């Protein structure tokens, strides 16, 4: 039994292989980018907006409001990264409704890659907002004794982000697989619905945690 889409290989040459994770991720990225380009070609400010533009506006303004609630004062600077994170994860988990689709986030590779992106983005945004010395000073924040704990905390929360998303998505697909051998008629449908709910909640959690880390790195003490 394969526990991750990494093991479904479509094409292999030497050590380069195209497996289901890579293919699904690229297809998702392609779909999202093409949809955004097509909708953005005809933006209007008037009342005659297309419903696709309305949908995008709802999504963007909701994310901006959420980022303001979390503590980021200028959400437009960070919404490129955080909004894309949320939209990618939400689309990846909603598309489980399509038969034959396996979410790329049920493989540790994808979730580790996204967690590494957050791990790299937090210092970059922190240095951009506070300067190099100002950002490094935040590690000594309460007292200098906290320095090793702050550093370990950085690594452990990245690891926690990756494992949390991976564990939730993989357990959803695995429970459905096991239930198909026990009670195949109606029970797996409930578990798929539960998996859909968990997927959306985990996408929200991932992006909210990423924005909380960025807010903590960017916010200066005077606020």
């Amino acid at each position, binding site marked *: 039994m394969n526990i991750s889409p990494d093991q479904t290989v479509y094409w292999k040459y030497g050590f380069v292989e195209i497996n289901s994770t890579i293919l699904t991720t690229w297809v998702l990225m392609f779909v999202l980018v093409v949809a955004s380009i097509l909708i953005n070609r005809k933006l209007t400010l008037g009342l005659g907006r297309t419903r696709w533009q309305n949908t995008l506006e709802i999504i963007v303004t909701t994310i901006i409001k959420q980022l303001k609630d979390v503590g980021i004062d200028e959400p437009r600077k960070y919404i490129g990264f955080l909004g894309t994170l949320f939209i990618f994860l939400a689309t990846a988990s909603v598309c489980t409704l399509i038969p034959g689709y396996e979410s790329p986030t049920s493989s540790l590779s994808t979730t580790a890659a996204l967690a590494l992106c957050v791990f790299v983005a937090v210092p970059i945004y922190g240095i951009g907002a506070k300067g190099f010395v100002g950002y490094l000073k935040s590690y000594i924040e309460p007292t200098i004794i906290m320095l090793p704990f702050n550093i370990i905390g950085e690594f452990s929360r990245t690891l926690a982000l990756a494992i949390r998303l991976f564990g939730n998505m993989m357990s959803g697909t695995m429970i459905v697989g096991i239930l198909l051998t026990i009670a195949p008629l109606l029970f797996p449908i409930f578990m798929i619905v539960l998996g859909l709910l968990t997927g959306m909640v985990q996408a929200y*959690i991932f992006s909210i945690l990423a924005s909380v880390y960025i807010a903590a790195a960017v916010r200066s003490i005077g606020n």
Partner: protein
Amino acid sequence: MDTITLTALIGMASIITAGITIAVGCIGPALSEGKSVASALNSLAQQPDASPTITRTLYIGLAMIESTAIYSFVISIILIFANPIWTYIITLK
């Protein structure tokens, strides 16, 4: 110790540990989730118009608590299905 006994021992230890991991690892998160939902219901009863904030914070807190149970689940799944020691020991013959 011959290979057959070693293989049997490793298989047995993996399966027993997987069972105990998931059993013990779910006690703590289940209790804390119960407590957090109870206190969320308490505060909803006291202030119903703060309901969106309370609900959102409740869900975020539940997902964070759930993640420790997920850690135990991942370990037990690895022990059963993707156990590296087992894949090594069955290649010895």
